[in-house]
């Protein structure tokens, strides 16, 4: 049970980190970025590929992976969102364009095989791979009947630190004030002399970099990297997390992430492994029906 609780915290950290980026974009733009789970996968895949196929050291590969995701954030903004914003298209149009980009990203990795067009990105096609043992130092401790692996334990401080930094930036810096202004009212922000487009690009870059990092942590801790990790693990769960915490609220997404981790582990212990997925979505459904503003919607009136 204790071990399960620990797993809930590991996986909850990853959910939280993923959902923070998701909710940041929703908070600023009122748009669901459905390419976010593809970016999550992209980060993990690029990092793996840099280590195994291009022989870079792990830390350098991580930086390359996160940078690639940040660039992907710019692609999302410039290809999928900005043209639609200029046309004043309904928000539903952005759902379709981001789905289109997600399709492209996943297909590019899926088709990455030796000799194919995308061999420089990925060579394992649709297979699931893991970092070879020894890539990352992974000492393991035994405390009582708990097993602590460094690769999993490290997730907790990394994600909490990043989320604190993001919270600080948004709350206390000039850039953060700009983001909040755009979230509150883009028109007024523009009239106050803010470069709204640049703020939105920045939002997408931060969001995608965090999503990519969450993917890398997932790939390292769960030894599972494939073109489908985004779709299978975080695509819909990310939605559940941001709804649990209240759409657009960053502290809400953090707490929602841990809460979902906990709910899933409880369901696993109480009801068995088959019920795990169903319980998470039933919780999501009930939450929306009973308290659509999320757990913290009432207190956290200000967005992001």
């Amino acid at each position, binding site marked *: 049970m204790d071990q399960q609780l620990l797993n809930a915290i590991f996986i909850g950290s990853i959910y939280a980190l993923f959902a923070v980026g998701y909710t940041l974009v929703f908070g600023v733009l009122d748009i669901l970025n459905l390419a976010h789970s593809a970016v999550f996968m992209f980060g993990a895949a690029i990092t793996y590929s840099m280590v195994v196929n291009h022989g870079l050291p792990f830390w350098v590969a991580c930086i390359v992976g996160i940078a690639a995701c940040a660039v992907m954030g710019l692609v999302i903004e410039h290809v999928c969102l900005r043209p639609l914003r200029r046309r004043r298209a309904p928000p539903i149009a952005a759902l*379709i364009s981001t789905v289109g980009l997600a399709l492209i990203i996943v297909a590019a990795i899926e088709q990455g095989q030796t000799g194919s067009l995308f061999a420089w990105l990925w060579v394992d096609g649709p297979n699931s791979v893991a970092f070879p043992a020894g890539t990352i130092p992974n000492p393991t401790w035994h405390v009582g009947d708990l097993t602590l692996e460094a690769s999993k334990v490290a997730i907790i401080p990394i994600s909490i630190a990043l989320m604190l930094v993001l919270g600080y930036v948004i709350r206390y810096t000039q850039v953060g004030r700009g983001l909040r202004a755009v979230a509150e009212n883009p028109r007024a922000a523009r009239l106050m002399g803010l470069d709204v487009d640049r703020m939105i690009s920045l939002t997408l870059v931060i969001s995608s970099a965090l999503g990519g990092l969450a993917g890398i942590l997932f790939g390292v801790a769960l030894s599972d990297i494939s073109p489908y990790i985004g779709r299978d693990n975080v695509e819909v769960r990310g939605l559940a997390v941001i709804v649990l915490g209240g759409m657009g609220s960053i502290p809400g997404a953090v707490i929602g992430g841990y809460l979902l981790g906990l709910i899933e582990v409880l369901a696993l212990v109480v009801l068995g492994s088959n019920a795990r997925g169903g319980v998470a979505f039933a919780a999501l459904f009930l939450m929306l029906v009973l308290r659509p503003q999320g757990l913290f919607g009432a207190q956290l009136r200000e967005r992001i």
Partner: protein
Amino acid sequence: MDFFIQLFTDPVAFWNSHTLLIAQIGINSIIASSMFIVLYSGQLSLAAPGFMAIGAYTSVLMDLHWHTPLALNLAAGVVLAGVVGVLVGLPVLRLRGVFLAIATIGFIEALRLGVILNLPITGEGLGLKNPTADPLGGINMVLVSLAVVLFIMWRLTKGRLGAAWAAIRQDELAALSQGIDVARYKMIAFVLSAILAGFAGGLEAHLNFFVDPGDQQYGVTRAVQILTFAVLGGSGHFLGPVVGALVVTTLPWVFQQAHDYINIVTGVFLIAVIVFRPQGIVGRGGLAIVRPAWWPRRARVSAPSPG
């Protein structure tokens, strides 16, 4: 290209070699029409795959255990989908926009992962075999159903109901102040859409020897695909979703040269269509293509203004 050449030079051979594709287009069109009803009334509901699953499982299970005729099976699936539609609609229709979309995603995944994958009678994760399926013979029924559905859609959007839905979509508050019972009309749209999805699900199950509870079939992936049909085709006109289903379903055949890269082509196509025509293929502005902001402006010859 072969695809189009055969379509125009030898329609009979085309029909014979692409029957399954045509049937799938028909099914997808019916489901897209079900999505159209909710979108037309201003609700972003992604519940369609859930109701399809209800229709499919009900009809196949009745056939397997009681050997009842197909029409009865489909009717039972439709009724059950409608009942569940009322039960789900009552709590969720207070939600708007993305919130409704996420709640309905919660519904379909709770149904699929929580119920279908855990009940022994639905075959759990293994799915159900459907030995009485009729992939080739079912096509006439699909096409007739599609024609009926399109006729109903046409009449609905021209009638009082359609006018009420359009009013609610454009401005809920204004519709309310005009005396339109918003909650009631939203519920009608949601349940009609559930019924149609249940019917399409039952029909689709009749065309396949296997009912697969996978994500591609009754999960979020399918929901997003159906949304794509409706939005890409144009959600303001009843023909839009059908055009969307036709175009998206035939893409892999049209771009046969793309082989394994078909999803990349599809992605580029989706982005291109939605950026150039945010209102969808069928919609306002005839066939005009909207010029995106970054497209080079045509040099304008300025005529001297009179006076």
